[in-house]
């Protein structure tokens, strides 16, 4: 299973947002997408998920053109984890996760025993089995994000695309979510996620792609691709990279350290 984009141009309608993006993700890989606000990350994600048509270049899933696949065929291969949102209706967490099973059901089917078992297994896997009967609207942002990841697991796609999974989470929940990302890649999932924090790329990504004004500014393994000059220029502030005694790489803004 491989998601590959070549010379990809993307945007809304006739309005181009980005072009010439090359990337690929396979099971076991974690691709971290970095870029400042307005760099085109979300538009790129929507295009990778087939929610927006590519404006140029090509996206393939295992060699098959994305545009030739139906919604269900795409969903069986790629799951989407949106930012933890406020739902309008108070579905139970279990129902929310069960919705990930839809793609494995017949058109007129209701979730069955197998679906329920898979959903509960996904909830247990993420350590939130005790939330199953709670209302999705009444759990915390971090719990919602885990529930949405559980839904992606229940969907049983080999690839998972996560749109800023750590956005608007407190520090502890950010660590919990990134830890899950790392763990899930270890179980053989391919993961693409976006973030505003370059530290997250060092923390759990095997590959990184930096998007700036719709163009690729850097790509490759985080240790090679993320340089002080590049990050400083992309984010418009002086960035220093430091290695802690534990070997952990972090970004430091000198402007705040003096």
């Amino acid at each position, binding site marked *: 299973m491989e998601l590959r984009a070549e010379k990809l141009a993307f945007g809304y309608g006739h309005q181009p947002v980005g072009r010439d993006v090359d990337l690929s993700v396979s099971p076991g890989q974690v691709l971290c997408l970095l870029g400042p606000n307005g760099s085109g990350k979300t538009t790129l994600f929507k295009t990778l*998920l*087939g929610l927006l048509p590519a404006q140029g270049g090509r996206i393939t899933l295992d060699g098959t053109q994305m545009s030739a696949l139906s919604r269900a065929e795409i969903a069986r291969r790629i799951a*989407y984890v*949106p930012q933890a949102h406020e739902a*309008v209706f108070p*579905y*139970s967490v279990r129902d929310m996760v069960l919705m990930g099973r*839809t793609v494995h059901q017949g058109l007129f089917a209701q979730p069955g025993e197998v679906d329920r078992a898979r959903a509960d297994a996904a909830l247990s896997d993420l350590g939130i089995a005790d939330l199953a009967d709670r209302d999705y609207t009444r759990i915390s942002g971090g719990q919602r994000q885990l529930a949405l990841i559980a839904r992606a697991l229940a969907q049983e796609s080999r690839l998972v695309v996560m749109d800023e999974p750590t956005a608007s989470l407190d520090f502890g929940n950010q660590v919990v979510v990134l830890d899950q990302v790392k763990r899930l890649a270890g179980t053989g999932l391919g993961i693409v996620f976006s973030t505003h924090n370059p530290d997250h790329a060092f923390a759990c990504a095997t590959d990184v792609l930096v998007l700036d004004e719709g163009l690729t500014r850097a790509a490759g393994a985080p240790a090679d691709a993320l340089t002080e000059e590049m990050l400083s220029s992309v984010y418009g502030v002086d960035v220093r990279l430091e290695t802690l005694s534990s070997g952990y790489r972090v970004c430091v803004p000198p402007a705040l350290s003096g």
Partner: protein
Amino acid sequence: MGDRHTRKLTPGLALSGLGLAVAVIAAAAAAIGPYPLTINDIAAALLRRLHGVSDPAFAQLETVLFSVRLPRIGAALLVGAALSAAGAVYQGLFRNPLVSPDILGVSTGAGLGAALGIFLSLPVIAIQGMAFATGLATVALVYAVATAVRGHEPTLVLVLAGVVLGALAGACISLLKILADPYDQLPAITFWLLGSLASIQPADVATAAPVVLISLVPMVLLRWRMNLLSLGDEEAAALGVDPRRLRALFIAAATLMTASVVAISGVIGWVGLVMPHIARLLVGPNFDRLLPASMLMGAGYLLLVDTLARTMSATETPLGILTAFVGAPVFIWLLATGRRGW
């Protein structure tokens, strides 16, 4: 767990309770009226009808029961259930717990057709046919306009197109009211726009019921997928369903259902807005349970209101007035205590 939800009853229990309540209201509605019947009278008459026995001693009683009350009870149940089912669908589609089945202009459109029919002094059946047709046509037009206007959030464009075309249809109704004969046609138009089951005929129920049942089929079959649509287009698509096709199908079914009952009852507001909302508080948002709960509540509520409308005073009170008097305070209460929508 302080915030653990306790408000949802076991769904089976809630639905049986609602079913029982509807049965009790129906029995009471059959008994109450200017010609009071006892439950024994009603049961005996039903048994005689069942066995094909006719007894001239009970002729008057049976006329009251079978030609007047039961058709009207059936109509109230049908109209209430249909409006609430359509309301539950629309609230899910538009991801807003406070929208009503006429959000896309079906009721106003039907009102325009009916007003035109009355203005042209057409027979009742033609007035109903025109109401049904213009109700459907209005929503079709709204949908066509929204599809033509691209590049915006699709549901938002649909709602705005519905508001605009609904206002236009409302203006046409006002024009017809001004032109109408103030002694004969104007009261008829006004009465129709407020909804009433006073002149319902058994044939009305017989024509509307099959349309309601047919519209109900996709709602029941696709009830799980309705839940996905209520998450929004992008999430539904990423979960593997085609939101545009599914939405078009649900809009068609809910519109057909609403138009078919509005054609026989006139415009009855609030039921389709308030009942699905309360049903959701009772059984939760899963459409599998929300649909039957909404229909039972809508059926029971409209029957209750209609029974009040025909027994409260010597002249019949239009249903739209009664449902508004109950609906508006409930709506404000929901706004004050409810969750955030748009």
